[in-house]
């Protein structure tokens, strides 16, 4: 990637951080995507967030669960479908939305100054005419045993049950590749109702050829009045 293009992307990151009125509704704390596809891979994924309190809605112990099944359909394209459930202190777990996403790896790892890819997502809320179409630029750069990753997202939200709206989001991760089972990381998330950062642990256990169990767990601390004081996030992923 040319230095000028890299500078423009970094400037875009800074603008996303500086323009909170433009950013996404609700918490954007979820996970950080990496711009790579592993050919032949299937993936069964569960990930969840638990926020102690969601300041904009007042909901307490708000949980979001995603259950996904994905598959690499080519050397560079991975698709995954999700069911999304929600639960809070006052309500039981219920189906909230459906989502399909596609990750497109656009560069070979290590070929250019930054590895890059694109993520496309389409989400439909259950029983409501609310659609969300998102795209994100995924960037990753390796510095020895450190890896830095950025997700720059742009979302259009529309439908008869919601006013049309454009939203943006940013997620950053700095990871130290200590060992396959133990990779400490720091993550930062930014959106209209989110500004948070915190530590995350990542790991992987190989179970056999193209078979592995990955996990992630962390706590993201709110850095402004609209972000939950803390959000616990967890991920379990079975690759086969």
């Amino acid at each position, binding site marked *: 990637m040319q230095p000028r293009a890299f500078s423009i992307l970094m400037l875009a990151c800074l603008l996303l951080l500086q323009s909170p009125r433009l950013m996404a509704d609700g918490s954007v704390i979820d996970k950080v995507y990496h711009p790579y596809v592993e050919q*032949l891979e299937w993936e069964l994924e569960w990930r969840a967030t638990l926020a102690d309190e969601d300041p904009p809605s007042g909901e307490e112990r708000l949980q979001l669960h995603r259950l996904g099944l994905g598959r690499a359909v080519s*050397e560079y394209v991975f698709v995954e479908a999700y069911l999304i459930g929600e639960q809070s202190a006052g309500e039981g777990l219920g189906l909230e939305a459906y989502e399909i996403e596609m990750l497109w790896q*656009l*560069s070979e790892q290590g070929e250019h100054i930054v590895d890059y890819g694109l993520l496309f997502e389409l989400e439909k809320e259950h029983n409501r005419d609310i659609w969300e179409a998102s795209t994100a630029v995924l960037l990753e750069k390796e510095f020895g045993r450190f890896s830095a990753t950025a997700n720059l997202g742009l979302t259009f939200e529309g439908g008869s049950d919601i006013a049309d709206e454009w939203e943006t989001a940013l997620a950053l991760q700095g990871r130290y590749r200590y060992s396959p089972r133990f990779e400490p990381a720091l993550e930062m998330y930014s959106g209209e109702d989110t500004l948070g950062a915190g530590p995350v642990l990542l790991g992987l256990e190989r179970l056999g*050829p193209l078979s592995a169990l990955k996990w992630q767990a962390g706590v993201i601390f709110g850095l402004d009045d609209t972000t939950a004081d803390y959000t616990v996030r967890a991920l379990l992923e079975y690759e086969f």
Partner: protein
Amino acid sequence: MTGLLLGAGALQAKTPIFEIEIRDHLFHPEELRIPADTKVKLVVYNRDSTPEEFESYELNREKVIMGGRKANIFIGPLKSGVYPFFGEFNPKTAQGRVVVE
């Protein structure tokens, strides 16, 4: 894919190229010597009819190579040392190392 980036061709022209073959679920050669502090391109040919995955945590790379196909894997710049790699589909036999010197 490389055409998506302006100047990528010029960058690649300066990148040393090394070749590895996978035959009978073994890497040939098993040991590859590359210069320190230099990005290199590994061209991995899979001569077997079944897929294999070049994998190395130390090199931070994993790449599936389908049977009868080849793949380009970019590694480095690296400090001097030994960086093991293996074939994930045949980890007991398909083993190798990159020696950076």
